[in-house]
Structures are given as C-alpha cells and as structure tokens.
C-alpha cells in the first residue's frame, strides 16, 4: 500500500438541487459547473489530463445520453475519457485508480441526469431482476420499506427514532444552500406525516431532485497549485452484494461494513470515530442507522457528525447523490462549507450507494493532510 500516490479533491461545483429545472437540459445544467470547478482551481480545460462521468441512460430516457455531455465537458481536442453507468462517485473512484496506475495526474469527474424526465420509482423498478423482483412491481419505496421493516425487527428501533433522524437531517439541510429541502421539520410533525409504505412515512423519504456536479481530482505535485486546502484521499474501497433481497440480511449491510473496514485500513485508521464527520448516502432513517451500525458509528457520540449537509434526505439527485457526498467532504476539509461547516474538521468519510437496499457501497476516507510520505 505504501507505493500509493497522494491524490486530493481540489475543486467541486454543484448547482442547487431542484425538483425540476424546466428550462435547461442536463448538458445546459452541467456546463456552468465544469466552468466553475475549473475556475475555482485556476486552470483551463487543457490542463486536465482525464475526464470521467457517471450517468444513466434510463434516467435520461434515451440511449447514449452521456454522449451529449462530451461537448460541455470540453472534449475538444479529443480527451482521454471514460463513462460509468453508475453514480458519479464511482467515476471518482475510477479516476483515483487511474492516477494510481500512473496514467494521469488531474481529472474532472462529472455527474448529471434529469430525473424529472420520468417517473423515477417506475424507472428504478427496472434495476431489479426482471424475472423475480421487477415483474412483481417492486420499486425503491417498496424495497426500502422491506429493509426498514427488517431493520426495525432486528434493532427494536421505533417510528419515533426514524422521526428524530429525519428531523436532524432536515435541520442540517437548512444550513446548506444547495439542498432541495431547506425547512426545519419538527419530529412530531414528521411522525404524523402519511404512510408511504409502512414503516416509512412521507416525512422520512428522500425527495428526488436534479442538479449537475463537477469534481476535480489532482495528484500530489499538481494539487497544491490548484487548491489552498486540498482534501487528500486517505483510503477508499467499494463492494457490491448479490441483488436478491430475499437472500440478503436486509437489517445489516455487510458490503458497507467491509468497504469501510478496507478504506479505514488503507487510511491507517481503526475506527470511523477518528473522522470528524461522515456524509452518508442514506435515503431514509433506516438506511442511516444500518450504515451507522455497519460503520460502527455511535450516533450518540459528538463525533463523527452525521450528514452536516442534510444528506440525501434533503435532496436526492440520482446518479449524483454519492459524488455530492465526496464534494461535501471537500467543502468541509477545505473550509468551503459555509453555514454547515463542522468546526475544526480534519478528517471526513464520504459514502455512496448504488442499487436497491444498499446493494453496492463505496467509501472514501479523506483528510486535510497528505496520507503517504
């Protein structure tokens, strides 16, 4: 492991999450963020060695939607490029690997997708095994509810606990100008909101939204000139589990647990409590508690602070939710988090997920100092 390179997040630009941008295509939304991220780093597009993006054709409602993004990513002259059909956090993961392979020193990582173009719950039904799960009409609401039930049964947590977690996230979201939901919510009110699918209430759900994001990565030697306070990547790991929700123990996340342990080991840490904050792709309170359990986080402790940005429960732009978590870690560690800054933050964890019931989990551990000398 000691022959790994220090790589940092040096720039991040995100448009505020909205339910539906009536006036702009996803490319129109992305272009200003690419410009902002590069301007923030004080570089031109030609200074960047590599580009990688994450998006989904089904979200776009057409095949090859990502091809259109090539233009606004500045793909002229031609660029070294890759596109992953995943949350853009996985694109950042790949860009990091590419830097480890010595194939590039700088990269832009883009995420985009207009989820308002379709009925997202119906679209995400198409992720499921087409024979046994998709065909019976399960959607993310239903599978999340199954997971939340399994977790309640396992943990003896209550509706009251769910409401408290949702309210805490909502209170944090008020301080984040990019959040979609920016209104304080009383836990009592949330716990009286209508059932969506038991045990999940309307007030516990993540509102789908759309935005566009561009994150800039740079290796040591380049990073310093591009950012006054880079967020150095200390460790990362990702794991997928089989999809079959009947065969997995939905009350736990073995994948998140293993990914966290591996990322911590790479970072030279033993526990997540060594981080000042975590940004989790938890789309409802049960997911947050499952992830905390998998990561051995005690929510009663002062540190780590959980989702200081308000997290996905204040805005869930599919295919970007994970990359925004990494962007938030950068904001915190680089002193750019504004009103939602965690005082004295030196180390943070970003988590991205993919698929139903936390099927795939990706963890980044970042710090304000370099990892390797």
């Amino acid at each position: 492991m000691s022959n790994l390179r220090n790589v940092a997040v040096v720039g991040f630009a995100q448009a505020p999450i909205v339910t539906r941008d009536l006036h702009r295509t996803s490319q129109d939304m992305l272009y200003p963020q690419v410009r902002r991220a590069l301007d923030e780093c004080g570089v031109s597009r030609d200074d960047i060695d590599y580009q990688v993006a994450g998006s989904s054709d089904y979200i776009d409602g057409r095949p090859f939607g990502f091809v259109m993004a090539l233009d606004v990513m500045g793909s002229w002259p031609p660029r070294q490029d890759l596109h992953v059909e995943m949350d853009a956090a996985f694109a950042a993961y790949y860009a990091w690997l590419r830097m480890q392979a010595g194939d590039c020193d700088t990269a832009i990582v883009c995420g985009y997708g207009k989820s308002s173009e379709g009925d997202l719950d119906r679209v995400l039904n198409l992720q499921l095994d087409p024979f046994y799960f998709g065909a019976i009409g399960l959607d993310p609401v239903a599978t999340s509810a199954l997971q939340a039930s399994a977790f309640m049964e396992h943990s003896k947590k209550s509706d009251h606990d769910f409401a408290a977690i949702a309210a805490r996230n909502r209170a944090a979201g008020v301080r984040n100008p990019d959040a979609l939901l920016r209104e304080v919510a009383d836990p009592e009110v949330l716990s009286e909101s209508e059932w969506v699918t038991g045990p999940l209430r309307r007030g516990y759900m993540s509102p789908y939204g759309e935005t566009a994001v561009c994150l800039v990565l740079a290796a040591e030697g380049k990073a310093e000139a591009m950012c006054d306070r880079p967020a150095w990547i200390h460790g990362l790991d990702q794991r997928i589990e089989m999809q079959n929700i009947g065969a997995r123990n939905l009350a736990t996340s073995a994948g998140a647990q293993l990914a966290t342990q591996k990322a911590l080991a790479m970072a030279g840490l033993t526990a997540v409590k060594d981080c000042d904050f975590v940004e989790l792709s938890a789309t409802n309170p049960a997911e947050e508690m499952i992830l905390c359990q998998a990561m051995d986080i005690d929510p009663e402790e002062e540190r780590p602070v959980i989702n200081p940005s308000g997290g996905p429960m204040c805005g869930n732009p599919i295919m970007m939710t994970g990359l925004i978590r990494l962007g938030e870690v950068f904001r915190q560690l680089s002193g750019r988090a504004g009103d939602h800054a965690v005082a004295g933050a030196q180390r943070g964890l970003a988590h991205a997920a993919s698929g139903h019931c936390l099927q795939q989990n990706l963890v980044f551990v970042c710090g304000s100092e370099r990892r390797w000398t």
Partner: protein
Amino acid sequence: MKRPVAVVGVGQTHHSARRADVSIAGLVREAVDRALLDAGLEHKDIDAIVIGKAPDQLEGVMQPEQYLAGALGAHMKPLLRVHTAGSVGASTALAAVTHVASGLFERVLTVAFEKQSEGNAMWALSPSLPFTPPLVAGAGGFFAPYCRAYIAKTGAPPHIGPMIAVNARENAMRNQYAHLREPVTLEEVTESFMLWEPIRYLETCPSSDGAVAMVLASEEAAKQGPRKPAWVKAGYSYAEAMWVPGRDQVSPRAGRDCVKHVYETAGITDPWNQIDTAEIYVPFSWFEAMWLENLGFCEEGEGWKVVDRGDQKFGRHLPINPSGGVMCTNPIGASGMLRLGETALQVMGRAGEHQVEGCKTALGHAYGGGAQYFAIWIVGDEM
C-alpha cells in the same frame, strides 16, 4: 502504466440471433465460466469485476450488473460498470487493465455482453438528438452518410464495401463462435437490397446475443497461470465532442490521437509492418477501409486500395478481423471486447482455425457514439 498487465484467460459464448436457451445471467455466466476455466482460476481468485455493455434499453434492465452480481461471482467484491457506447467492450477491458496496473488488484475479471433478442435494437440504437427529427433508422441510418462522405472524398469504387463483406464471411467460417457462418458471393452482396445507401443488407452487421470475458493479471499472477499470457503493451480510450465545426467524421481526430498514443507507448513506428493482425470494429462494410486509414495502416485515401488488393485478407500481409469481426457477430456491448479478446488469443497462439501464423503483435480496436469514442490496445507475446 505503473506495472505490466497480462491477459491470462479469454472466454466467449457461441453467438446467435437468439440464445433462447439461456437467460441474460446464463449468457454472461457462459463467458465467465469459459474465461475462468481458460485461466485455470476460480471465482475466489478474482479481486474485482469490471463489466460493460451498451445502452440498458437493449434488454430493458437498468444497470443490469446489479441483478447479475451473483452470476458474475461479484458478491462482496468491487464492481465497476462502464458504458461508452459501441466502444464499451474495449473501454471496459482497458478499465480492467487500469485496475491491475494500479497495484491494488492482482486478478480482475472483465465481462461484456449484449442479449439483443430481449429488445428491439433498432429502437434502442436510435438516440434522439437535439434539434434533429428522430429517424428511428438505427445505427445504419446514422453511419451511412459517413460512408457516403468517405466514398465522395476518396473516389472509392462501389465494389469495395461488398468485397469487405465477402471477406468477413469467409473469415467467420474459420471461427466456431461466430454468429453468421455462411459464405456469400460478391454477386449476392451487390444484389441484396439497399438498407441505407451505400450499405446493403449483406454489408451490415447482425443483431446478436453474446458475451465475452477475460481475466487480467499482474506479472506475478500471470506467471503462476497454466498458459502463456498475452501482455498489454498499451491501451487508451479517447472521446471527442459531437458538435465541433469542422469535425472529421470520416477519420475522427479522437481515433487518430488515440492510436498515436497507443503506438508511442507500445513503440510502434511502422504499424503496417510491425503489427501482425488487427481486430477492428467494422459494423458496416465500408468502415474497414475507413479505419485502415484512421489507424495509420495506410495513407488517407488509400484504405480502399488495400482492400482492392486484398492485402487485409487472411493469409496476406495484415489480416484484418480474422475472426470475421463485427460484420459476422455483433452483440453490441460485447463486440469491442471480442475484438480485444481475439487479439489476445492471436498472440497467445490459441486462435484455432483463424490463427494468424507467427502472430506476435496485435491491435484491438472499437469505436462508438457518432464515431466519437475510441478504445484501442496492442498486445504482444512478450512482456
């Protein structure tokens, strides 16, 4: 690359218009099992999986790698899903190369597939472009004007496309896995009906079900394998914007830049003489002549003359697509990786009946989008 990477196993399915005998998972598993068997490995030996396919609309399953995780043996492992349009099979394999080159993974399984019989490829390959009425004419409708532009630019005579089609079918006769294994005559091709001027019915690729997998390994892991590996000399993926004024769609700059980078890294200065065979992405006949130029195998405007002389035929100077290529087998998402896998088999000396004699260096190529994405590698028999 920080460290050498080798191909230690290749497996592919038998391809056909409709593999009704297997589900999507069964199809993928057939290729994975064959690749692992070829490498003398089991699922437990694999550190990560990199999978690619073309638009999810082709099968109607969104991000199908999630549903396929079990069949891929990916449970509790890292998995990356790539999609770069038609080039995806090749760019996926190159992403797997990066995984090994990074030093974090010793053995990576890479897989690409398409089960086109699950859906309607013509619809799924008809993207809606801004300010452009939807033609729903598929990839052929999109690329035919590029071929017409090539003919207009070079003055190539009309029999070149049909010659390429005939040769592809001849080659596929020597490939037991190919989808179309029926020879055709020049007369049959030129008499087949016109689909998209100048592309006739027998000058277009089929719509196939198929999958391919490879195991990539570090030097140390490769040397533990039962067979002689193929070594990756260089590999890059490039893309270019669509709406650039003056963009050359016939010989795209992304292709030229990509192959230049590959040649420089691999130490190739005279591709026509230093490369023993190439598997290149030819979905419609004329593209073979076009890519011969774009890849620097000949001067601009000379590609059709290479074909006219037959120098790219099996047993001649530079055999192109000895497997029969995309013209005879096209499970879109897998087609790029099939090109790369075939080149690995060639330098390993295990391509069977279509083995190019004495093959030491081979080039694999795929393209996609509106001729915007290019993924190219060179493999050799020595590290």
